[in-house]
């Protein structure tokens, strides 16, 4: 029971991370295209200024929870996915410092350089997380003798498809965010980007659902317990709702996109159960929530910690989000007490 609860929490932490940092990635990629001058680029960056750092902590928590609850999975997941994780790490480091460095020297070339860094190193993790999770859904090539893959094993068609899928999810998510967090022309361009990205997202989401049938065993759980089909169904409905809400309210469209990302992650997670990382060559070696977990004692202690503190975290993060809910306007950028980047 504890193991299953931790499995759900594990999935939830990753899902919340993608929901939150997802729009940061989208914004980081899009800022080169929806903003035409330095002032507009600053507007874009300042929409995520107060929150990107807090969003990234969900990744650290997801990593820490994997370590605490499923240490064997943590050990294998991180050493098997060595190179993509290093690239993700380097990307997050470069993206993080570029927000701080960019405005600190008043030179056109300096700012343009960091703009490009923000773009490239938002793009890379968006795709790499997709590739990593696509391969986890599919299973990694390991058996009792260890790991038999390389970086190129991960670049299989299904992994790449999931990479593109994640990228489009985050692009749509970021564009919707900018549609109501930026203002004037930037918001208009973001709205148009969100509308143009949506059909692509629809196509790739469809391809993902179809190829999942052939590339993975995720659907077995759904066939055995059809009630769970409700989760992918909500994902599909949210995707359609984004389209509908784009006509009336971009805030509602963004919330639909949040639900979409959460349910997409859970579509995969439910299919994996009780595996955390299946083996693609020897099912007997699958890393499951039972054979790779911590002791019941540790799971219990950590559950108490989570039950007490995560609601507090959610409460003050929501408070902070509400505090900065207003769109960034051009005149705000004149005032460094409002727009610090």
């Amino acid at each position, binding site marked *: 029971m504890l193991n299953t609860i931790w499995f759900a929490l594990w999935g939830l932490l990753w899902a919340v991370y993608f929901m939150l940092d997802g729009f940061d990635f989208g914004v980081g990629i899009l800022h080169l295209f929806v903003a035409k001058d330095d002032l507009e680029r*600053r507007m874009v960056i*300042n929409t995520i200024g*107060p*929150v990107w*750092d*807090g969003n*990234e*902590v969900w*990744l*650290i928590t997801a*990593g*820490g929870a994997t*370590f*605490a*609850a*499923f*240490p*064997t999975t*943590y*050990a*294998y997941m*991180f*050493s098997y996915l*060595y190179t993509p*994780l*290093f690239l993700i*790490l*380097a990307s*997050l*480091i470069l993206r*993080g*410092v570029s927000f*701080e*460095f960019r405005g*600190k*020297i008043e030179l056109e070339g300096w700012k343009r350089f960091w703009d490009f860094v923000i773009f490239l190193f938002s793009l890379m993790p968006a795709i790499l997380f997709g590739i990593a999770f696509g391969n986890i859904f599919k299973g990694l090539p*390991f058996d009792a003798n*260890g*790991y038999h893959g390389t970086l190129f094993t991960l670049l299989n068609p299904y992994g790449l498809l999931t990479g593109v899928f994640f990228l489009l999810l985050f692009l749509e998510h970021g564009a919707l965010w900018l549609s109501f967090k930026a203002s004037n022309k930037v918001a208009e361009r973001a709205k148009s980007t969100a509308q143009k990205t949506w059909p692509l997202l629809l196509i790739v989401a469809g391809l993902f659902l179809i190829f999942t049938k052939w590339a993975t065993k995720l659907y077995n759980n759904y066939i055995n317990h059809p009630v769970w089909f409700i989760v992918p169904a909500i994902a599909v409905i949210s995707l359609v709702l984004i389209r509908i809400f784009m006509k009336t309210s971009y805030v509602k469209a963004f919330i639909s996109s949040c639900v979409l990302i959460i349910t997409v992650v859970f579509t995969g997670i439910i299919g994996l159960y009780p595996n955390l990382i299946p083996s693609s060559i020897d099912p007997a070696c699958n890393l499951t929530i039972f054979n790779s977990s*911590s*002791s019941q*004692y*540790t799971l219990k*202690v*950590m559950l108490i*910690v*989570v039950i007490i*503190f995560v609601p507090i975290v959610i409460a*003050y*993060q929501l408070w*902070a989000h509400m*505090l*900065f809910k207003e769109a960034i306007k051009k005149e705000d950028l*004149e*005032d*460094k*007490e*409002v*727009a*610090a980047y």
Partner: protein
Amino acid sequence: MDTVWLARWQFALTALFHFIFVPLTLGLSFLVAIMETVYVKTGNETYLRMTKFFGKLFLINFALGLVTGITLEFEFGMNWAQYSKFVGDIFGSPLAIEATLAFFLESTFLGVWIFGWKKVSKKVHALSAWLVAFGTNISALWILIANAWMQHPIGYVIRNGRAEFVNFWAAVLQPYAILKFLHTVHAGYVVGAFFVMGISAYHLLKHQEIDLFKRAFKIGAYFGLYAAIVVFIIGDLHAFEVAKTQPTKLAAMESVWNTEKGVPLYLIQFPDEAHKRNAIQWFGIPKLLSILAYHNPNASIKGLKSFPRNDRPPVTITFISFRTMVGLGAIFIIFALIAYYLIKADRLLDKRWFLKLMLYAIPLPYLACELGWIVAEVGRQPWIVYGLLRTSQAVSTAVNTAQVVMTLIGFVFLYGTLGFIDIYLLFKYARKVPEPATTKGGY
């Protein structure tokens, strides 16, 4: 070059690099919170400008501390998978708790602090600064609880081929963890205090913003005197704990080869590892080492020779690092006392030599922090978990030498570049004159 050796170098470099930025965050977060609180209480705008001036330096420094911390969490799994598997039941928990209790607090309220000057009241804004400071210090608490368990494993049993928790609180509340925490955060406060005093001294020497920087120097001097004294006292108690729990580390720290009673402390000493003796030992103060290590003049100290060769840590580097750290710790107390006296006597501006000294002293507390970590981690060798798991058995089996070389080169290049830029920016903004109280434009 084998994978163990490369993975150790990678961990040493990434951890020591991370710890260039962390101690200033620990200390300066409190100092900025104090400055802002004085502003809120007195309404004196000088303190607001001071808060913003040092706040900006805090942020430049913080950015790199934050991003380089993620590396370490990933590195346990990437390079040290066997270690992670063996200790995950215990070691993973404080890491997850650190993120949940500390990182969220720190990052969320830092966002409020940076962007919220016009969104929240003065009091809530100052409160945000305090929450950031508590966040960074709570973070230090949990990661040091984790590290203390590697130094002195407790509250566990070996079951299912790994260490499993049986008593969470034993590991969390053990004296080793608490002392290590207090010692480390106070070291960070010394870094912060000397940073504030040093930069204030620079501006005082240039006769700019005399009033503001005299006040800042005063805050730094009071905080610094407190921290320098406490870090030294806790350091002594910490060494006492090391003597009880890690006899090989203590012997290496003091370069004691033979087991003896009532051991003297030699003021000048240098180890000769090849011949298992000291090349030099001059000016011995009778029984002092026994007193320091065990608080008992006749206590017996186990020498390195009484441990099997493959259980001994590298002696020279541990010994030199420890000696230098302690020497620096004493210097900090002297400097802080002079600073305190000159502030009290209002003679700070007359003593230009002292202002210059304090400016050039900025790097010293950083050096002491790095040396402290070298003592802690090299002194624990050859164990990754003292007495339980050897470092050589802890690396990932799925990772080959080429991969570690690639990421090691990647980190050196990445950290080298970013470190250079960050320190350049710190210099640039430390030299600037604080801005007027209300400012428009800029970025």
